[in-house]
């Protein structure tokens, strides 16, 4: 039936009409994913049965996905969202973090803050201000003894306030801080920009000596460095003959989003290069830039990063090797083929907890919500 719908639309309609059709299909997927999350909601505000369900970031991601969904919320959804928000608040620590103490504190707090903020409920303002302060404490800056010229990690956000930073934690922190009203004019965002630049394979704008051996692909790595600890996908040989951490899709979309949040415009050498890489490596079916056979790893994280980056750029279409494409249409169409009958999504590759249907359905729902917006 889906097949006939799309065949008919290709035959009879073109352009905008095809997008409209994709939109309807995406809305259908969204409805099913919402119903799945509601059905999986527990009385205590968590979702599902996995042992990770008590990490606030997981229910927070579900809440965020539900809050961003188009249209009205059902009475059931409202009830679920209310008790999930209460669960998050219950997990707020005296230092403002919304987390199980010591466990991925910045991730959990940033996602929880995004979720609570997305509900538009003024009751959470005080908790959100405390969370904002905690997130800022995770930034590697002078307060923690970091110096711009001495530490290539300067300006990045880490797991907690004494850990190494990385671009993944940084993208969640900046997303949350932006939602909480901060922007590129703040010194925190300007310092973050220093870090984000240093994660890009871009000889022109990356000031770290060993990154000068890169091929200037425009893609991003997990954190600056010349070891395999700086990419989740190992090392790659550059034209200079040196081995550098392999840049990959998740971090590239995260990097693009961060550069935009930090105020860089489209014509800067950083973003120009990054979009060149995205055009070359455009892929909605698996994570781009990773070694063959590993495109499934982190796929649902990838679709969120991708949708966020395109949304932040206000970019609906992009020129690729195969011609001009509409990312939202492509992504929504592919996601709907991955959805299970019960409305859930899950990743066959368990890395980064994506075999958990709560996590992957939430990610997919966020991406679908953004795609539907772009298809309006």
């Amino acid at each position, binding site marked *: 039936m889906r097949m006939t719908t799309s065949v008919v639309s290709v035959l009879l309609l073109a352009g905008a009409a095809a997008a409209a059709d994709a939109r309807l299909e995406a809305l259908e997927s969204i409805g099913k994913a919402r119903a799945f999350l509601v059905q999986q909601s527990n009385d205590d505000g968590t979702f599902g049965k996995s042992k990770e369900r008590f990490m606030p970031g997981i229910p927070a991601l579900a809440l965020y996905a539900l809050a961003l969904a188009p249209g009205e919320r059902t009475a059931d959804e409202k009830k679920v969202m209310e008790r999930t928000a209460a669960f998050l608040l219950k997990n707020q620590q005296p230092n403002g973090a919304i987390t199980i103490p010591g466990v991925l504190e910045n991730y959990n707090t940033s996602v929880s803050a995004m979720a609570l903020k997305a509900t538009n409920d003024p009751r959470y303002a005080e908790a959100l201000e405390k969370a904002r302060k905690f997130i800022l404490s995770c930034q*590697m800056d002078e307060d*923690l003894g*970091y110096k711009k010229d001495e*530490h290539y990690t300067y300006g990045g956000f880490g797991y907690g306030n*004494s850990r190494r930073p990385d671009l993944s934690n940084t993208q969640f922190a900046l997303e949350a801080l932006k939602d909480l009203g901060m922007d590129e004019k703040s010194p925190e965002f300007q310092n973050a920009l220093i870090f984000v630049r240093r994660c890009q394979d871009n000889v022109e704008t990356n000031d770290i000596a060993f990154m000068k051996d890169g091929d200037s692909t425009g893609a991003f790595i997990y954190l600056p*460095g010349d070891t395999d600890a700086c990419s989740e996908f190992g090392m790659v040989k550059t034209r200079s003959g040196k081995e550098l951490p392999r840049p990959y899709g998740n971090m590239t979309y995260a990097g693009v989003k961060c550069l935009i949040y930090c105020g860089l415009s489209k014509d800067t050498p950083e973003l120009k290069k990054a979009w060149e890489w995205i055009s070359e490596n455009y892929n909605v079916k698996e994570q781009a830039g990773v070694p063959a056979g590993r495109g499934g790893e982190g796929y649902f994280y990838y679709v969120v990063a991708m949708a966020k980056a395109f949304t932040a750029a206000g970019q609906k279409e992009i020129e690729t090797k195969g011609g001009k494409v509409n990312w939202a249409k492509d992504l929504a169409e592919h996601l709907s083929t991955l959805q299970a009958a019960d409305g859930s999504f899950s990743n066959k590759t368990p890395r980064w907890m994506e075999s958990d249907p709560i996590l992957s359905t939430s990610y997919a729902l966020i991406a679908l919500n953004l795609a539907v917006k772009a298809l309006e």
Partner: protein
Amino acid sequence: MRLSRWLATVCVLALGANVSALESRAVKTATDKAGNWLVDQYNAGTGTFGKAKHSKMPGFTALVVSALCESPRKYREGIGPFISEPVKQILRHQREDGAIALEGTGLDAYNTALCILALKSVENPAYGKAMEKAAKYLKKCQGKDGGYSYDHNAKQGGDLSQTWLSLEALEAAGIKKDSDEYKNAVKFIRRCQDHPETNPDLEGAGGPGSGGAFYKPGSSAAGNTTGRDGRTSPKPYGTMTAAMIESLLICEMKVDAPEIQAALRWFRENYSVKENPGAGAKGYFYYVLAFAKAMTAVGAREFELSDGRKVNWAVDLAEHLLSIQAKDGSFVNTEPQWMEDDPVLCTAYALKALTLCYQAMK
């Protein structure tokens, strides 16, 4: 969960293949937890780790620095102040004579050797001169018998533990292998082994001939044992036997040399990843470091015990360490001897050992 891990190990051994990706990833996660815990013990301002009295010693700081820098995360100074500041502290403590140590602790050679290893681990060419100068001092701690002692006054005489660390440091500082330091060290090391065939002190049958090694000629932390001829001789134990193996390999002895073969035979008889064989819980974490270093230096992944069992040392050791790692990522010994009641020390040793396990399992 433990069952599946055990099954995985059995399968791997049965196939004689490398350990599965999942298995080595679990070890990597454990190194991360240990590393993160150590980073959390960093004291901004003093550039040290932990709160113990001995935390002010530059060699102690150096041990943590090298554990973090060698770990799969490969930390370097640019990663943050928790590496760059301790390195500055290490350099600041270098004396005119090259030693990197606090005055009056009597542990100048240990401290200097550990500091050289830390400076090496950050891979910063700017520290070549400091390492050279430190190595010069370390050479002065070698006695006439070839053993290294606590400091250049050498009042206590040399011991195998100090000799092992010194040789590692001299090698790290780039001291050429044809220099006398290594040759002389071999003479000393031979005298620390229960191996009457090559140990002149035990000539005849002054020891049982187990092949194991002890702390220094005539002395062992594990007490005494009786030789074949009825003479009393020091009882060998794991740490020193492992230290001996790596030391001799640093001195360019071949694995098939009788000294090393005898030591490996001792491990076939006394193999343990759960205790320091011959000494029990005493010095367990120093043992795991020495053991992992020795096995890495020998280059054998699998190992046949005297009872015919085939073991994979890296998998066995990593499994046991994972089973005793605290939830927060740290390690500590129930037996306080040799400062092993300090979790910072034990976690640094364990992190180094886990890193070597991970590399052997990859």
